[in-house]
């Protein structure tokens, strides 16, 4: 299966450091599956590079890591990469996932109007808990994993050729499983449950949910 996967991975603060490192797994999987990966990491997660790669390669899947707001998603040092009313047409014919705050509220629906196949993200702030002593080894941070593993599930499922609908459901199921685990097991921290629930509550998919890269 031939496909192109573009991912933005700013890494200028604790939050983006975690998102960037946890999403490396999706890059590995895309490469294993024979996909072309466009990894806009660190300083490369800037508007000029993003627009250039989007126009030149027209990726099938776009994953946006970074801070955001209802109508925008940002990159390195919070430079705006995408903004409703400005350049959402860049997402035309793409399957998009934004691990970013609030952008599924306005940017998501606006991008669908502009021709995006599907836009999945969060309608309110994305919250996660982490263990600062594991900052230099974020993938060993099981607390952060409760939040970021469900996110990876969504993209990994898309890369495997599943539809947005199926990928969304798989991601929700992992979130629910982690939520129940947080609430019910002694080894987990029950205080994380409220934040897992918050993310679950705000997770949204817009557009045609039956599309896939196959």
């Amino acid at each position, binding site marked *: 299966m031939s496909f192109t996967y573009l991912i933005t991975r700013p890494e200028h603060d*604790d939050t983006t450091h*975690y998102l960037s490192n946890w999403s490396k797994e999706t890059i590995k999987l895309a490469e294993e599956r024979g996909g072309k990966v466009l990894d806009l990491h660190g300083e490369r997660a800037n508007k000029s590079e993003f627009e250039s790669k989007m126009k030149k390669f027209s990726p099938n899947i776009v994953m946006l890591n970074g801070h955001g707001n209802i109508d925008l998603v940002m990159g390195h040092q919070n430079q705006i990469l995408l903004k409703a009313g400005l350049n959402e047409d860049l997402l035309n014919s793409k399957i998009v996932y934004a691990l970013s705050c609030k952008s599924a509220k306005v940017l998501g629906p606006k991008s669908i109007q502009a021709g995006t196949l599907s836009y999945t993200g969060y309608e309110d*702030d994305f919250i996660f*808990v*982490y263990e600062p002593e594991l900052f230099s080894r974020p993938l060993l941070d099981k607390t952060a994993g409760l939040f970021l593993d469900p996110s990876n599930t969504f993209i990994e499922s898309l890369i495997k050729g599943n539809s947005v609908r199926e990928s969304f459901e798989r991601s929700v199921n992992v979130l629910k499983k982690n939520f129940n685990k947080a609430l019910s097991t002694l080894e987990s921290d029950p*205080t994380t449950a*409220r934040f897992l*629930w*918050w993310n679950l509550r705000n997770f949204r998919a817009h557009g045609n949910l039956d599309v896939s890269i196959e």
Partner: protein
Amino acid sequence: MSEEKQETSEEIKELVIARLDAIPSNKKISIGNYGEFTKEELIEGVKFGSEVGKKIIEVELEFLRAFKQGIVK
């Protein structure tokens, strides 16, 4: 509608602070564009009515409301 836009009662603040205090001290919480916080910083935010304090009150109250309505099991 939303309560966070109204004056938050002292009772609600105390409830939220008690719940935040249960978070282990070795953990931090990333809350979107607000940044990353220890539980002590969040508790301060609730006490003094900062923007992140208002946000965490909203999260806690929504969670408790869902729990009461049986959405959270």
